[in-house]
């Protein structure tokens, strides 16, 4: 997808800087994510990939720069970030399911609390989502009773319950046993096929190559190279990209 039509820009990041105390982790990042696009962010550890992703829904307060999501400037203090976040689902490396709620309650919580749905309607929606991630039989289980892969699929269902039109994935398979990576990636592939706008920080090069429309390579707090998976994996131009891919592939 190489459409640069302004109106389909879902996320526009301009000159993003982020410091942790004196440590500059993002050194002026510019990026545009288009509607329906699947963008994978790859790069070595400590390159700022996760921080970049977490700035997109303001879980991380940026130091300077501008981020526009769905037309809202989330760096503007007057914009209600909670409202914007309802439209951005996020999936974490550590799943972060609520351990004191059943699987179904985990998914129903936000839609009910934020008054988007009546409990009965939210329950129906939760069951549909569980069906979709193949876990309808686990509706009344607690997260602690599920495997890592199952927990992550529930976490995806929970993020989808608010009907977001953007999904952020922060290394969603890094905490999983190898045999469970596939089931989570399969759910993500389905989402991608359905046209969800996705930004995925990942170490799964196979997934990045197969599913993404565009790959961003990050190193040292900046995007060093970007392009189609064919370009990045087949014919990387930047020395850092070549070096990184040589090590991981």
């Amino acid at each position, binding site marked *: 997808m190489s459409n640069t039509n302004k109106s389909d820009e879902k996320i526009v990041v301009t000159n993003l800087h982020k410091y942790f105390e004196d440590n500059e982790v993002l050194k002026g990042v510019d990026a545009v994510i288009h509607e329906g696009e699947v963008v994978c962010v790859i790069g070595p550890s400590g390159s700022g990939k996760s921080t970049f992703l977490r700035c997109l829904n303001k879980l991380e307060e940026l130091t300077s720069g501008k981020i526009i999501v769905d037309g809202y400037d989330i760096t503007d203090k007057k914009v209600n970030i909670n409202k914007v976040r309802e439209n951005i689902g996020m999936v974490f490396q550590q799943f972060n399911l609520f351990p004191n709620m059943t699987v179904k309650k985990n998914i129903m919580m936000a839609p009910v609390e934020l008054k988007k749905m009546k409990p009965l309607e939210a329950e129906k929606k939760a069951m549909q989502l569980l069906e979709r991630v193949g876990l309808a039989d686990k509706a009344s*289980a607690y*997260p602690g009773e599920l495997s890592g892969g199952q927990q992550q699929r529930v976490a995806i269902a929970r993020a989808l319950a608010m009907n977001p039109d953007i999904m952020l994935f922060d290394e969603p398979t890094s905490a999983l046993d190898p045999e469970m990576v596939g089931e989570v990636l399969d759910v993500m592939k389905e989402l991608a096929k359905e046209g969800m706008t996705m930004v995925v920080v990942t170490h799964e090069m196979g997934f990045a190559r197969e599913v993404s429309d565009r790959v961003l390579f990050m190193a040292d707090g900046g995007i060093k190279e970007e392009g189609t998976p064919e370009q990045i994996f087949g014919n990387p131009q930047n020395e850092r990209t070549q070096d990184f891919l040589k090590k991981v592939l």
Partner: protein
Amino acid sequence: MDFSRVFNEAMPLLLDGLKLTALVSLASIAIGMIIGLFICLMKMSKNVVPRAIAGVYIWIIRGTPMLVQALIIFLGVPQLIQVVIPSFRFDAVTAGIITLSLNAGAYLAEIYRGGIMAVPKGQSEAARSLGLSKSKTMRKVILPQAFKFSVPSLVNQFIITIKDTSILTVIGMAEVVNKAQQYVGSTFVYFETYSIVALMYLAIISLLMLLSNHIEKKLKYEGKK
């Protein structure tokens, strides 16, 4: 040994005192839990003013004996208020409940704070990323989990509060120890009377411990992992 005599003569008196002990304990724990929650949230606030107020409050309560606090509240504070309202007085029960609640509140605030900090950061991040506000995240996601982490320390504080009611005998609050003192003052049967009082505390606190075991079991949700 003359337990039967004490049973016959003093039991109505002691049970009367025990009722007040239980009542004052319950009231102080309930009020203390609410004070504790507010102080805890103030202490965790981003704003320096509430944080400082909570810090000073905890510092004073923890740094002074409850006996002295009780004397200040029962005898000292009314003197100050009498400057404006000459007829003002606290009765011993009111002063006692105020002292115990303020005391429990300070310790409970720290217990809650410990519980809240024990909830992994990912929990609030997950709730916030769904669009929940800070306060909703606190109420719906963090506090229920923090409560579970706090149960053993909460019960410990409840036990301390129940036992601390006995200190309030110095301000003349007619709880069980006070009643016992009245009785031994004229009969001099110290061992039997105070042993019975000790057993009464033991009974109440054993009940509380049974209850807390039950609650802890009920709050277990972690399943297999």
